[in-house]
């Protein structure tokens, strides 16, 4: 098969698609819409994972929680001493992490009490705050955008009143806000210092909810986690990778469910395309027969159909992917943010940045082009084996 001949067939395919531009355009539009949805999902999940990775940068490598009867309970600060001498631990910082249910807004907020001055990367926290925010001092708190909106807090300096377990009120002054770009992790967060959170939740002195372990070399996390677990048998030791996994699973499950719906849609479309292509009309039949009389072989007709299928599916792939990329990065995946981040009561206002990864593009390509070609192979074959004498009578 000479190159010139292949180019001629390709040329004929392009001309044919152009002649049938209405039909071609229709298929490309429907197909790229389906691809657009699938690719948007893929990109959104990727972007959410990137976001989590990025936001978790400053968080501790390992978290230790005390367990009793399979449930979490407060952990004594004394445990910190028991970790002395484990090589590779940079610092252990106590933390109070809890959930506060606000009856009026029917929302759950995440309350975090930290001694951020003792945190090795406490400085990074500043970067997550909007301009003019201050790290909370005693009696002060930082809030996420979701909290601010839900409670309709006017601005910095507003007072936040929360109930202690005995229904007495605890007032906190808002010293700043988290940046919307960190929403995925911080939107429902109220951050305060350790003493205030202990007061709010009524936790006894000398106890916290968990201990944060910062590690010098991230590659040693597993070893260190194992050593901690051995020394503190009544605790659960959670490395950061596991937290990431949890997030990924949440997105993955939702994404996976949606992907199945979309694959069904793609399959339906391909069946439609197949159906459409298999009902060959007499004109098409005649055209093939004439081409054969004139000297085209079965393989040439097959090649023609192959080029047509490839051009249609590849164009749809390009169009769908580009639109999806624009949708996710410039419009924040507006179409399905509710499904993907709906796990929080408050909808995060995050900025999504899908990294354009070859693996994603390739995945989408392989879900689109080969199946389309496979779906059209039978009709292509049926068209190719039309005998030349079909044109004679």
């Amino acid at each position, binding site marked *: 098969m000479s190159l010139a001949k292949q180019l001629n067939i390709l040329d004929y395919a392009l001309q044919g698609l152009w002649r049938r531009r209405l039909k071609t355009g229709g298929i490309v539009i429907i197909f790229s819409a389906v691809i657009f949805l699938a690719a948007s999902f893929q990109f959104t999940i990727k972007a959410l994972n990137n976001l989590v990775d990025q936001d978790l940068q400053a968080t501790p490598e390992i978290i230790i929680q005390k367990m009793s009867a399979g449930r979490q309970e407060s952990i004594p600060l004394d445990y910190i001493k028991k970790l002395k001498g484990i090589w590779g631990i940079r610092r252990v910082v106590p933390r109070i992490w809890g959930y506060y249910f606000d009856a009026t807004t029917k929302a759950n907020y995440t309350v975090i009490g930290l001694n951020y001055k003792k945190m090795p990367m406490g400085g990074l926290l500043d970067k997550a705050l909007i301009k003019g925010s201050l790290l909370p001092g005693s009696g002060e708190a930082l809030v996420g955008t979701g909290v601010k909106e839900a409670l309709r807090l006017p601005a910095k300096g507003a007072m936040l009143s929360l109930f202690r377990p005995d229904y007495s009120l605890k007032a906190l002054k808002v010293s700043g806000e988290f940046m919307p770009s960190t929403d995925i992790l911080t939107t429902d967060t109220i951050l305060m210092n350790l003493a205030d959170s202990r007061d709010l939740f009524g936790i006894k002195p000398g106890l916290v909810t968990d201990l944060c372990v910062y590690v010098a070399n991230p590659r040693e996390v597993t070893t260190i986690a194992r050593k901690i677990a051995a020394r503190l048998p009544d605790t659960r030791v959670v490395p950061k990778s596991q937290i990431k996994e949890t997030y990924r699973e949440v997105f993955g499950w939702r994404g996976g469910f949606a992907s199945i719906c979309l694959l069904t849609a793609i399959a339906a479309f391909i069946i439609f395309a197949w159906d459409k292509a298999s009902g060959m009309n007499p004109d098409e039949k005649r055209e093939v027969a004439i*081409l054969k009389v*004139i*000297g085209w072989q079965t*393989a040439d007709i097959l090649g023609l159909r192959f080029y047509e299928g490839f051009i249609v599916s590849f164009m749809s792939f390009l169009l769908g992917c580009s639109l999806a990329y624009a949708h996710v990065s410039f419009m924040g995946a507006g179409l399905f943010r509710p499904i993907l981040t709906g796990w929080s009561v408050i909808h995060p206002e995050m900025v999504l940045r899908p990294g354009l990864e070859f693996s994603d593009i390739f995945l989408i390509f392989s879900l689109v082009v080969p199946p389309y070609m496979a779906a059209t192979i039978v009709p292509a074959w049926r068209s190719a084996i039309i*005998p*030349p004498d079909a044109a*004679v009578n």
Partner: protein
Amino acid sequence: MLIECKRITKTYRSDNKLLKAVDGASFTADKGDFVVILGHSGSGKTTLLSLVGGLTRPDEGEVLIHNTSNWQQSDQALSVMRNKTIGFIFQFASLIPSLNVLENMALPLCFGHHQHDCTALAYKLLEEIGLADKAKAFPGQLSGGQQRRVAIARAFMNKPEIILADEPTGDLDEETENDILAMFRRYNEQGCTFLVVTHNNELGVSQNNPRTLRMRQGVLHA
């Protein structure tokens, strides 16, 4: 020998009845021959032509072109033979409706020719049939006779050794018919072999040394 038909038979099955469209037909034709095939409607003339041209596979017997049996070669070789050796003029409209006249003409040369040469040759042939001004028209914009003439011109595009023509002048007026027959004679004089199917007893008269074969119910008589 250029064309050699050896006892070819083609049977069609319709409504569970077997119909021998061509029944043991044998004949030969050499370079430069002009063979007229006469016969009533339904006598198997079209079937015979498509057997000779390698469009239809015979049930029995074989057709040899340049001493090569049509159906004992690969699909590719047979296609090349149809492309290079034969020009086929169909009994009925055979232009692709979505291509204009020039594009229809260029189809046989689609493989391995320069666009420019194609166009030049197409114009020369359109000139010969008197339709040079219709080069950009689509088949739907032409009369039946004009479409027929374009189809005739297309058959000559690949400079074939053999022209298989099925009622080529069936729906043409006398004057146009004479033009086409004169064109046939010119190509015939240059050595092109013709196999022409017709109802018209007089068609052969216009040619130099016509040979007439008659078909009756699938059987070929000299």
